[in-house]
């Protein structure tokens, strides 16, 4: 706030500030000039113009310089209350006053220009770094499946040399690669929806139990190799949520759990309504996240060091984006013994209509 007021006040305010500052100092000068003499008043005014030059733009500063020079001449230089100047010395002094004030204005202006350029360059290099990470991640995660598809089809076109078993295997590689490619594209589209700011929630009443099971069922058959338990209270109310976005949130969290944990790991999903908020927790009994990196997992393109391939590092940042779009929070913590715990909290409208006995 302070920063805004000092560095970027609107034009009109800038003019006002410079005029008021000069007039105030002139007032002080008038009150004190018997004690300090008119030349010290010139220094006071010069200091004022210099201070103004620190945080105002060039035109208001020049106005302050001109105004203060004129007022000094009119009100202080003998003969007072005329623009006439009695001595050559004073004429010289006024000219010097004017030049110094102008130099101040111009120098400050130049310094500000340089600062602006430095800031722009920093932003640019940040953006370049961001796009490099994006490109690295993308070129790996998109090119790997594409390479698989191209290579496998090339092989299949020279099919005489291949056994039936090899053919089946190549076909299944193509299938896996294209599904993986599709998932990456899906994530990229979600991310660009988030980044572009066009994401609009379409909230409707959701049966969160149905949402959880629908999402889980999409992971068949891979998920049957994990020990999945779901806890949903019988009388859970309906919540107003964007079904599509929440489906993707759960999909990404479950997919994350499957990707980072060996088969046979426990996966526990809990849904509840606590203090009028929707609470979803997803925990596993795997090895958890490196404690030092936990605060980074929701960042774009973050991937746990040495993690298995198959992710762009977008999944969890999409989770956070979609949850925040619901004004909710998502956190990650390691469990005391083993495994990780994701906690989602969303404040939203709830309806207990399902508790009423119908008809």
């Amino acid at each position, binding site marked *: 706030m302070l920063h805004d007021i000092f560095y970027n006040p609107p034009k009109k305010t800038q003019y006002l500030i410079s005029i008021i500052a000069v007039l105030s100092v002139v007032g002080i000068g008038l009150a004190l000039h018997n004690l300090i003499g008119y030349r010290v008043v010139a220094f006071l005014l010069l200091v004022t113009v210099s201070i103004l030059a620190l945080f105002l733009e060039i035109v208001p500063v020049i106005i302050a310089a001109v105004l203060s020079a004129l007022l000094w001449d009119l009100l202080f230089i003998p003969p007072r209350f005329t623009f006439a100047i009695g001595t050559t010395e004073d004429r010289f002094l006024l000219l010097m006053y004017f030049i110094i004030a102008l130099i101040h204005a111009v120098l400050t202006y130049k310094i500000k220009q340089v600062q602006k350029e430095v800031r722009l360059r920093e932003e640019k290099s940040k953006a370049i770094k961001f796009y490099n990470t994006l490109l690295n991640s993308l070129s790996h995660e998109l090119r790997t499946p594409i390479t698989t598809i191209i290579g496998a089809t090339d092989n299949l076109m020279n099919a005489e040399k291949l056994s039936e078993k090899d053919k089946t295997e190549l076909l299944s590689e193509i299938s896996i690669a*294209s599904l993986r490619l599709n998932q990456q594209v899906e994530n990229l589209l979600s991310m660009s929806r988030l980044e572009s700011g066009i994401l609009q929630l*379409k909230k409707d009443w959701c*049966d969160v*139990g149905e949402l959880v099971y629908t999402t889980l069922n999409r992971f068949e058959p891979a998920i049957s190799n994990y020990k999945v338990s779901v806890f949903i209270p019988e009388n859970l109310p*309906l919540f107003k949520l964007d079904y599509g976005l929440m*489906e993707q949130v759960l999909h990404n969290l479950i997919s994350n759990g499957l990707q980072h944990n060996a088969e046979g790991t426990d996966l526990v999903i809990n849904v509840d309504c606590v203090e009028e908020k929707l609470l979803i927790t997803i925990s596993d009994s795997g090895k958890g996240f490196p404690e030092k990196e936990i605060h980074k997992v929701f960042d774009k393109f973050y991937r746990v060091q040495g993690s298995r391939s198959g992710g762009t590092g977008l999944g969890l940042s999409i989770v956070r984006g979609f949850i925040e779009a619901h004004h909710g929070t998502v956190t990650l913590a390691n469990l005391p013994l083993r495994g990780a715990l994701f906690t989602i909290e969303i404040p939203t409208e709830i309806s207990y*209509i*399902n508790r009423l006995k*119908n*008809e």
Partner: protein
Amino acid sequence: MNSASILIIDDEVQIRKLLTITLESYNYHVQAAVNAKDGLTAVANHPPDLVLLDLGLPDESGHEVLRHLREWYTHPIIILSVQSTEEDIVKALDNGANDYLIKPFRTGELMARIRSALRKAATDENNSTAEFGDLVIDYAARIIKKNGAIIKVTATEYSLLALMAKNEGKVLTHQYLLNQIWGTSYTNESQYLRVFVAQLRKKIETDPNRPVHIITESRVGYRFVAK
């Protein structure tokens, strides 16, 4: 065996080729059109038994084609689309599309939808009872049986299930179901629909958490499937 004819309207040559080869291998007669104009002409000249319509055509929007076709063409139309916004899908379903598939889709899914749409078109008679795998609905007596045993349902539950069953395989939008069962003043009261679907699933599904009859179509509606 299958001699049904299918018209593909899609501007992407790869999709047309893929669909032609796939459908011909299932013994369908296949025609293909590359844009809206050719598609409309093809339907008029040789009305097919089913149309696969892409929404993103170069000369005219697929929604327009759908609107033109539905002025006189009564056979099933299945929408293929890369635009997965639910507004688009709901609009197409409201304009008379029977079903939709979002690219990329699996061949198995496509064939199941085509079969279901064609079967529906063939058996549209007013049978008094209908069988859907383990479920039997007696429309005359307003009775639902699962594995031979009568299931007790309320009047609203029955109306909802009967409406979905009569549109087997077709996606019914939330708004349509609310309008039909509860009336137009309930169009935005989707919580009723959620509650009644959950109750129905508890009664008719073997595992309500893995429904095989009442399938959720995210953000769009529900689809009743015989299994």
